[in-house]
């Protein structure tokens, strides 16, 4: 079971959280049907390796936040509040 560092509450067991899919998806503006909307709904990177994902501390502070996790080793590089810009390797180093 993962140990997830909630940006607000600190490290907690995975059972307090709910995974919430890929992070930094941008909900397209506008009001017409277009290809970008289909991609927003259904296209996901499903990265092997360093993935950016969303979690919600649903049985804690209730906050959504983002995390960088290696999907092979399951090691978290970092977690950060929703709304902050995507973390790159350089930010973390």
């Amino acid at each position, binding site marked *: 079971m993962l*140990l997830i560092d909630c940006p607000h509450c600190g490290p907690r067991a995975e059972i307090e959280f709910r995974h919430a899919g890929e992070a930094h998806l941008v909900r397209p503006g506008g009001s017409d*049907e277009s290809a970008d909307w*289909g991609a*927003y*709904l259904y296209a996901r990177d499903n990265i092997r390796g360093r993935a950016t994902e969303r979690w919600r501390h649903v049985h804690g502070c209730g906050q*959504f936040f983002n995390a960088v996790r290696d999907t092979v080793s399951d090691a978290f590089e970092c977690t950060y509040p929703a709304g902050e810009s995507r973390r790159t390797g350089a930010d973390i180093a």
Partner: protein
Amino acid sequence: MSRTPFGGRIDRSRTLGFTFDGVTYTGHPGDTLASALLANGVHLMGRSFKYHRPRGVLGSGVEEPNALFGVTRGPGRFEPNQRATCVPLVDGLVVESQNRWPSLAHDAGALNDLGAAFIPAGFYYKTFMWPPRAWHRLYEPRIRAMAGLGRPTSDSDPDRYAQCWAHAEVLIIGAGPAGLAAALAAAAGGGRVMLCDQDEEMGGALLAATDETIDGQPAADWLAAALATLAAAPNVRLLPRTTAIAYGLHNLVTLAERRTDHLAAAEAHGARERQWQVRARRVVIATGAIERPLVFPNNDRPGIMLASAAQAYAARWGVRVGARAVVALDHDSGYRAAAALADAGVAVAAIVDSRAAASPALVAEAEGRGIEVIAGQAPADTRGRMRVTSLGIAPVDGDRVGPPTRWIDCDAVAMAGGWTPSLHLFSQSRGKPVWDEARGCFIPSRSVQAETSVGACAGHFDLAACLRDGWAAGGGSGAAPRAQPRADAGTSVARRHVEGTRRRAWVDFQNDVTAKDLRLALREGFRSVEHIKRYTTTGMATDQGRTSNVNALAIAAQQLGVGIPEVGLTTFRAPFTPATFGGFAAYARGALFDPVRRTPMHDDAVAAGAVFEDVGQWKRARYFPRGAEDMDAAVARECTAVRTAAGLFDASTLGKIVVAGPDAAAFLDFLYTNPMLKLGVGRCRYGVILRDDGFIYDDGIVARLAADVFHVTTTTGGAARVLDHMEDFRQTELPGMRVWLTSITEQFAVAVVAGPRARDILAPLVEGLDLATAAFPHLSVADCTVARLPARLFRISFSGELGYEVNVPASHGRALWAALLAAGTGHGLTPYGTEAMHVLRAEKGFVIVGQDTDGTVTPDDAGLGWAVGKAKADFVGKRALLRPAMLEPDRKQLVGLIPVDGTTLAEEGAQLVDAAAPTRALGHVSSSYRSAAAGHPIALALLRGGRARIGGTVEVAGLDTAANTPMRIVAPMFYDPDGGRMSG
């Protein structure tokens, strides 16, 4: 008797009785089942899995493949496949042998052994193929009858199991010399230290120590002092009888603590086991090593065992494993075992050292004890059926051993084939084992998690090195405990595999896999070690190849002409040793399997004789039968009461959320398809929630309590996910909005009063509000008092009748219920359940999300296109509704169905077909009920292009051979189509 006159760690002052296959024996506290049986001279302990060969005990711990028993500790407390080496002896223990018929000594299955040439590896895969039909009827039942080890009990488990979480700065797994040194060092560091060990006693190899000394004390004395020190340290938790069964992510280690199996029934209190989930900042793995047997023909006879086991039986349990033993070795540690046997009074007939040049010091020491050392020779065969009677040996020639050239009479053979570090937990921590040619074993490589492997599991087989290694890993400062280096701690030699005859030499004792089987698999083209494992079954079942893996790899490497690392290791999976289901289930059984949620008025429903149904975790009253009524009769009566007088319904389980803040209206306008900005204060609106994919996610009522405060309801099952969905948009898409969400599902008890008499019943109880339609019309909300209770009153209807929903603080729920029932006396107020509620709403064509929708239904599909605010710039799901597939006229749409014959009730979930093309599914029946109001059965259905087909017919497909039912397609509205009853 095979018990030594003194020595060992057993309590000879007390005697315990036990029975094995009906025969009574005795032993002492401290004994295992295995040591007690050996002390009674019992070597025949089981039959092998496939050939039913007589087998004795091979090991002395978790590695044991042969001595498996059914163990009974009292009524319902039967467990099969218990390793005799791991069963602590308690008074009154009842054990039985397995895999034999009619008895252990006379086993009919042993005929398999005579036909062994005809059942090689893969036999079942190759043989039982034709005719195909025979598999089902003949082969599989027969094979199933023969297969498997032991039978589980069908009684329910009378024991209780506990579970707990723990956190530690250092978790040390294994309390042998390395683990103890680590614990002593870590304890001094002050952090929380946990030390667990799977054995009945802590000490590991020190429990079978002979003449070792640590810090100048005999090993046993040092051990006692070390354990006393640790027990006295407030920051240390000692967990004996506790196996680390799994090493998970982020240093979460699962421990299985056995709390009562070592106690007699009268002393056993509380949970039988406790499963620990330990999150450790650092883990020290000190799990030791397991000795390897030698592979030679007929190496599986009772009396042939690991040298370390023979030594442990002598030194720890005071048991002589035979009167006359031969020690066969290709590792120096066998010399120590020989000395221990000799010290215990076993005549050691010879030491057979397969290596040409044995260590002169060790040879001299052995010869000093009068033991003959035969170097450069190896075991070549054995004799004896129920017990070994002699060992044949022959000179080693390269990597081959010929037929026996000399026979040595003996009743025990101790095999010292070198050591296999227990890398299971290291491997589960995602570390990669690497082959160490010098030591002849796999050892841990780089740590992946915050873990350190120490001692024998890291390839250090010398006591002094183990102590140093553990001390350093525990963060010890100052001098580590010191032991005298020994000559017989030599490194293990990677064994050239010697096997010279055509007779069978066992590699995996438990699964009856021989060297020949492995070679056959390789000849047939299997190369991957994972494939070889599954084809031959080597390394499977309860012992998971603890004694066989490396020997099997050596044979494969030899045959393939490659090195052992190229063959590779199979994956080590959790659990390390078999674990009880009870430990995993722990508290989650019976009434605590899952929370059972009851509404504030639950007891009133019970008193009224309600029949309940499960809706998620909730118990909801389904119907209230009177007298001998069945469900149909009760539901018909309840529906009629609502249509003609009034009904009372407990709607407390509906999800309820307060949406508040200056931007609350704008937020809801974005979350619902409906326009919400202009909803007036004191007014309600039915709302639909989509996901961004355009499909219906939930529905409910949105009520505006104040300009910036809304009370919204969700379906019972949708309460949590709707809140999650709203929070997602609030926090991540609309973070600038000043709006907040508060779940109030459990704050309120909710009673629905519905029916033409509803106002008459309610009005006398209400203060502060005029219920007349002009003052409080359909879709209104207001705070008031009802029966002197603070209440939030809605005028809404899910039944099609005049309806009110009374919300009061949950602690007042029963008072409200009682007041309403009293007020309803004389008005025909009738409690009704969820079943009647379903019928009433279906008569009105109101959908239930999750029943009439399934995650692929748009508002238009469900006939809710009117609820979509098309003028809104954006709302969740809006753009998806414009996608071409969402606009196709042939989508499945909600329609009503009426049986053409006027009587047949359609099956919910049944497929819809056209009579002309009955194989093409056009949709399905989503709701179906008998309707007293309509006078015939009614159904709601999702039908391809349904709205355009209204007026036509479709058939409900019958299951299997049942006939199809023709249905008339109608608009989904069976009662009061213009809605005058609920708004009037």
